[in-house]
Every structure is written in structure tokens, then in C-alpha cells.
């Protein structure tokens, strides 16, 4: 039992979420967003919160391969779907090629936008395996980065595309 913002009590319910190939039992009220549940209940803090108005893209995850802003998506609605967070794409011993490209090109500075940016780029390359520079710009336009000026991020995604690092969805 928890108390919501109006101070009234609401009921927690139990359900399962499938994240990065694992199943996590979750106990949360129905009003919780996916971002909060991933970060505080499941402990996957790679997905970031940069705003509260669906404007920054730092919270982006893949839901059955589609990019969504997890801050604006109810956790309970993600039941039965495959959720991929940044932690599911690669690890320090084996970086995903997108992660490697981003580092090699200098597309990471403070890193706060980076997880969302990589998720977005992954989704873009699944849709379009050889995007133009403009298409990458548009594909990433839901992910704000204050540090890089985007040029090196776009370079990295183009480089990654030319290496065929993401399998396009048929």
C-alpha cells in the first residue's frame, strides 16, 4: 500500500516484466511509469531521467524493438512485452558496435544522454540500415544532447551503419 501524490492510498499489484531477456517479478502501484520501475524496483539505472515532459529522450528503451520514452509509459502496460534497456545491448567486456563507435568518434561527453541516444540509434538502424546524415539527425531528434553538438554522435551512427552493426528488422 502506498500513498499517491494527492495523499490517497492506492494498491500495489504484482506482475512480471521481461527485461533484457530476464523475467523480473515486480510489485508496484498501477500509476508507476516504466522508467521508475526499471530504475528503482529492478535496479537498472542505466536508463536516465532528464525531464518530466517527454522532451529529452534520456529515458528511452526498446519495447519489442520499438523506441519509447519510458518516463511516459506505464510499467504495467509493458507486461508480456520484451523490454530492452541500455544494459541489454553490451557490456564493458563486449561492447555493442554502436557503443564502440560512439566512443571512438568522441560522441560521449557527460554520458547522460548516451544510453537513450544508443537505444534510439539502434532502433533507427533496425528500421533503416543505411541512413543518410539527415535521416540520422531526424532519427535522433528526440534525444537531447547538451554536450556534443551532435556531429560526433551522427558520425558514429553513420560509421556503425556502414559496418552493418545492427541487423535490420525484415
Amino acid at each position, binding site marked *: 500500500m502506498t*500513498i499517491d501524490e494527492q*495523499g490517497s492510498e492506492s494498491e500495489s499489484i504484482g506482475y512480471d516484466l521481461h527485461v533484457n531477456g530476464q523475467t523480473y517479478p515486480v510489485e508496484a502501484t498501477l500509476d508507476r511509469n516504466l522508467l521508475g520501475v526499471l530504475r528503482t524496483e529492478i535496479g537498472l539505472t542505466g536508463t536516465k531521467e532528464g525531464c518530466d*515532459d517527454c522532451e529529452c529522450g534520456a529515458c528511452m528503451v526498446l519495447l519489442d524493438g520499438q523506441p519509447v520514452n519510458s518516463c511516459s509509459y506505464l510499467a504495467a502496460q509493458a507486461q508480456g512485452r520484451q523490454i530492452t534497456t541500455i544494459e541489454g545491448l553490451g557490456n564493458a567486456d563486449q*561492447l555493442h558496435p554502436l557503443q564502440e563507435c560512439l566512443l571512438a568518434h568522441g560522441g560521449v561527453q557527460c554520458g547522460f*544522454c548516451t544510453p537513450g541516444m544508443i537505444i534510439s540509434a539502434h532502433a533507427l538502424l533496425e528500421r533503416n540500415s543505411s541512413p543518410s546524415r539527415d535521416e540520422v539527425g531526424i*532519427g*535522433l531528434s528526440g534525444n537531447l544532447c547538451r*554536450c556534443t*553538438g551532435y556531429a560526433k554522435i551522427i558520425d558514429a551512427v553513420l560509421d556503425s551503419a556502414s559496418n552493418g552493426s545492427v541487423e535490420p528488422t525484415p
Partner: protein
Amino acid sequence: MTSGLTSRNGVRNENYLNLKAVTLEPRPFPRADGPDKVTGTGRYAADMVLPGMAFARFKYAEISHARIVRLDTSKAESLPGVVAVITATDVPDVRYSPGVADRTLFATDAVRFEGEILAAVAATTEALAQAAVDAIEVEYEQLPTVTDVVQAIAPGAPLVHPDWQNYEVSAETEQRPNVASFSSIAHGDAEAGMARAATVVTSRYVADASHASPIEPRAILAQWEGRKLTVWSATQVPFDARAGVCETLDLPTNQVRIIVPHLGGGFGGKCGFHFEAHIAALARAAGRPVKLVFSRKEEFLAPDRRREGMVVELTTGLNADGTIAARTGTLLIDNGAYTADAAFFPQLAAMLAAGPYRIPALKIEASLVYTNHQPSGSVRAPTAPQACWAIESHTDELAATVGMAPVEFRRLNGLRSGDVGPVGQTYGEIGLQACIDSVASRLTGETGTEADEAIGLAVGWWPSFPGPSGAYIKIDSDGAGQIITGAQECGTGAVMTLRQLAADELGMAAEDFELVYQDTGVAPYDTGATGSQTLFNNGRAVLLAASELADQIRQLAADHLEAAPSDIVLSDGHASVAGSPNPAVSVAELAATAAGAELLIAHGSGKPGEYPETVGASCVGDQGVAAWASPQFSCHGVRVRLDSETGVVRVLNVATCHDSGTILNPLGALGQVEGGVLMGIGQALTEGTQYDEDGCQRNPGLLEYKLQTAADAPTITTQFVETTGGQGPHGAKGLAEAPNVATAAAISNALAKLIGSHVTQLPMTPERVWATMTDATPSDADRDATGHDTSEPKSGDEL
């Protein structure tokens, strides 16, 4: 246009002729924090969790000027889950702020801006904390609001701080009613110069306030263990944060430890001392750890780190040959309700208003004016983009008045190596002219400008800030190195570059070192990620530590190899005897030997570079930054497209060139320039805080305060002029702020060619562009009420 290095009046300078802008080939730059950041395993402050922690929310004023009649927290205290509610009466009665001590942690008698904190609550969930905040009762008597800097200094204006004369101020701070700090620079006889001038041009430019807007909202977690306090904070300046906590909560520095997990950007927004003491005091009252995470809206409303609004009036007298005879200027800088670190802004802004030009007679006066707006503070190159936008737009107006191309006007009047600057400082080798040439040749080299496109350029300058800084380096028994530094990484890669500096000095690889950083409990002092000073000062400290360590290794190797230490060469992780075919010994092997004896451990700090003297200039309210140490120069040029139906401007491509001395990490440097340019485009076109008539922000969110996106990003080419004489390591100057100086100005100048007149308000939003276009129709093209000359060059593809 003329080519290459020929200047209009034939002035040539040997040093200048030797300087050339170059495109740097990036060296691979393995970021130590890279894998953490791309895999999402790196922890930021908001990711930190402690057992039993409670959540903090603040009660804000939500009104910009009022006397507090009654503040009642009793209902909030009695709500379920609430573990602490504190107000001004629960903390020491301390008035603080560097420069002008004009604020307290919590409002006492009055509130002076909407984001002022009245009370702080800790509860077992965020929702309960918010419910408790909402239950706090406050009764106000409204006071007259001061929202306009011009009205604020008019005689009889209501005072934001009636008690201002009793505030403690630093020695040189010059205060006046509603003016927190005033500075002026006078050099030569400006009045006489103006009287003799062939032409006099006056301009007035007004810039709105804007925000640093790092993508990570600030977060703070505080925990007490006995009398010891640890605060995890998203701050750019952990040692400043510690100083603030110690001052306001009356604690010694050795009981307070500030740790910064990965920092999600700052741009000055997270400089200074903010909310660490509030959360520490809450944690003490609650008897458990307390965590604060800001919403995006709070990130806009509460921090005292807004980029200041500004009104700039400039008058420049020109000689018939186009040289500048004299300049006067008045700058009013919106301080907001409290001074934060802004006391030195007037002096910075005055130098920016002079600009990097040869001006024989100069008088600039700048005031930091109190209003009931959110306080201003250092945001990436404070005062510079707005002041540069004004001065460089004015410069294009000057060029047009004497019928010169803007680029030629700058070649003629711009500073050169060996020149004497506005406060009598003689410059060594400076790359301004080479920066202009580099940008001009790239921009005009492009083919075909459409009718709705134009190019424009602007020059900028910015100081470097010498300061104290320290680091240790050790190599443990297995040969693994650690750099323990007070420096703070905010994304620029400055701290990451320290590995390379140390490795090069020791003949090792960057990957041989791990960094221990942003923890005041383990590392020596550094000023923090502020003033582009990290590599400039901490690089010096690390180089000194590395060279001390190299001596230790040479001594060990000399014993081992039976040679003189001076003959030992360090390379590839080994020590060998110069010119000897005998096998080398690895640093790891020597480190193992040292582990059983005198450890391999060194420290570095070094004397900060000196500030040059001012000569023959008078500086009232001197805050020490009239003469600039290791000054940096830049030129930015842009090609823009204007949709004349809507007033929407798009920046198509950008050419930049910077003199920041030696570039230590080209990939990192390019990243700083590109990020600075995008921020400059935002400032130019979309980023401006709008206030309602009561001084409250109208657009505190990313939907209405528009940052640039990847779809807006132009292509950017960058060159560097690597002048000698920078006081940083290997001749480096600062860098991170300089790219955020000239972009908005270059856009303004390109745009003016399309419209026929400059847009005189920043940001140059579609509405303002459209209004300027409408005003500048041929029928009233030669109105001169605003002093704008509309005979500016109409051809969009000339500079």
C-alpha cells in the same frame, strides 16, 4: 575579398605571418569513463541509494517579491511519513555568497524571487514529501516587483535589498542602490576621441536570460555518520560545495566529504554552492540519509545559475580610414535577486564590450543590477555570448558605415601579436588574425549562395583562469597506476586527458592509469569544472607529479641497471639506459621493488600562472579580471538560411577557428567547439527565458524552452591556431568556454545581410526576425532613430 594574409592597410606583423590555422588529426582518446557511460553501468548522483533514505522536497516562494507575514509548518510536520521539516530557524544564521554576501539558505524576512526556498521537507516517499510541502502555510505581504534593469537603477526605484549597505562584500566590490557590483574600464580620453571621430555609430542590443540546461537534473544525497557528513552531489565544483556547506552549517572541512559520481553535464549550471547544505541539514534533522532529485521545472526555476539578461549600449567613433577612434559603452546585467558568483561579471562584460580590437580611447561602464528574477551565475563563458553578440553586431554596423567588408574591418582593427589591449596589457603571440583568415577562406570558398542564404562572421575572446590545483600519482606493486586528483570531470574529457599527460611524461600508456577523482575526502584541492580551468591548472599539477614520479623511477632503474639516473630513458612502460643495447627493466618490475621500500608516490601542484598587470587604465570595481591571463581568441562564421515567410532561421554550416594555445587532446577539443557552437545556435535562435510581469518564468520546461536537436545540427569545421605562450601545460590555454562566445554574433551578422538590419533582441526568434524584416522594408529603410545603418552589404555571399 582579399586573399590569405594581406590586410587592407598593409599592416603586417612577423609573428602573425608565421601563424597558421591547422586542421588537427585527432589522436585516439580512450576515455576512462567511456565504458561506464555507454553501457549504462556508470552511476550518476540520482542513481545513488542508501538504506533508510528519505526524500526531500522544497517549499518555494512562488512569488517574486514579498514580506513573509507567517510561515507555518505544523500541518506538514504531522503528516504520515514526514521525518523532518526545516526552515531558517533550524540552521545557523549565516549570510553567504562570494563577492556579496546577500543570501541565506532559507528565506528569513522576505522572498526575492519565485524559486527562493522557505522550507525543506524529508519524508519516506517523494509523494509524501510533496504532500507535506503542499501543507505548509505561508502568508505574504506583497512588495513592489523589480523586473527591468533600466527601471531598477532609476532614482527612487524600490530596493530589492533595502539593507544592501550592511552586507559583507569583497574588498574591491563597488556597490550602489540596486547594483550589486559595478566595474568600469577607462583608457585614453574617450570623449575627446569621440569628438574628433569622422563618424559616430550608436547601437542598443538587449539579450534575454537563458539557461545552462544540462541534461542531468541535479541530485544530492546526504548522510551523517556521527559528526562526519558525506554528500553525493551532481556539482561541478565539489570543493566549492564543501566550502559552502562548511560556511553555512558551521563545520570544519575535514568533517565534510563531497563525492561526485559521474556528472551529467553542467555548463556552469552546477557551479557554485547550491543545495548541499539544505539536504545535509535535513538529513541531520531526520536522523537518516536524505536524497533530493530535481524535476526539470525546478532545474529551470531554482538554481542561482541562469545566464544573465543584458542591455548593451555602445557608441563607437571611427576615423575616415575605418580605424576605431574611441568607444563608450554602458552595460546593465540582470543579476536577479542574489549575487551568486556574479560580482566579477561587470568586469568581464566590459572587456567583452571593448572586444579584441585596437581602441585608443575607451570608457565602458557595467553594472550588475538586482531584480526580482532568478539569480544569475556563471554559465559557460558568463556574459560572453550576449555581450559578443551585441559588440559584433555593432562591429558589422561600423563596417557598413565606412563601406568596408566586415572581414576587412576586423582585419584592420583586430588585435595582433605585440599589440597593447584595452587595459594596457601587451599581448605576446595571438592568433586572432589567423583565426579570421581561416574562417573567411573556408566560408567564402563554398560555392553558390542561394538568395535566401547568407554568410556572416564574428570574432570573440575569452580569458583563461590560473588557479591553485593539486594531484597525486602512485604506481602500486603490480605496476598499475592511479592518478588521484581534485579535478572534476563534467563531460569535457579534461580529467580523462590527464591520463595521457601523465602517461606521456612517464613513457607509459594512458590505459596504465585509473583515475580517482571528484572526491574531496581523498584528493587535494582543485577549483572544479569551472572557468575552463581543469586541464589548464590540474594538467600542471599532474605533469609535476608525473615528473617527480619519473625521477623516482629513474633512480630505481639506475640502481637496477647500474647507470646514472640522468641516462635512464622511459618509454613503452620500460626504463632503459640511453644508447645501451642492454635489456630494459619494466616499470612494473621497478614498482614491485618500490613496494617493499620507498613507495612510488608523487604529488604535484605548482604555482598558478600570473595575471598580467593593467597599465594606464583605470578600473573601478576591479575584480582582478581586467587584464586577461592567457587570452583566447576565436572566429566563428556561419551560413544561414532564412524563411522570409515565417522568420525561421536555419544554420546550415559553421566554420570555426580557435587560438587556445597548444591543443592537448584534439578529439576532446573538437567536441568542446562543436558543443559550444550548438549551444550558441540555441542562444541565437531559440533559448530565452520569458518572464511575466511579476518576474516569474513563463517557459520553465523543455517544450517551451527549446534546445537544439540532432535534426538542427549543422556541419561544423574547426581549425586551431596553436600559438605559443599559454600558461597551461605544454603551452595550453583554457578551451571549454571559448567556443560559446562568437556563434550567436556570427548568426546575427549573416541574418542582417538577408534582412537589411540587425535583430536587436536575443534570442532572434522567428517573431523578432519577422518584426525586424517588417520594420526594415525599403520605405523606412533609412530611419536612424535606432542608429542602425541599413546600407549594410546586401550580397549574402561576401564577408
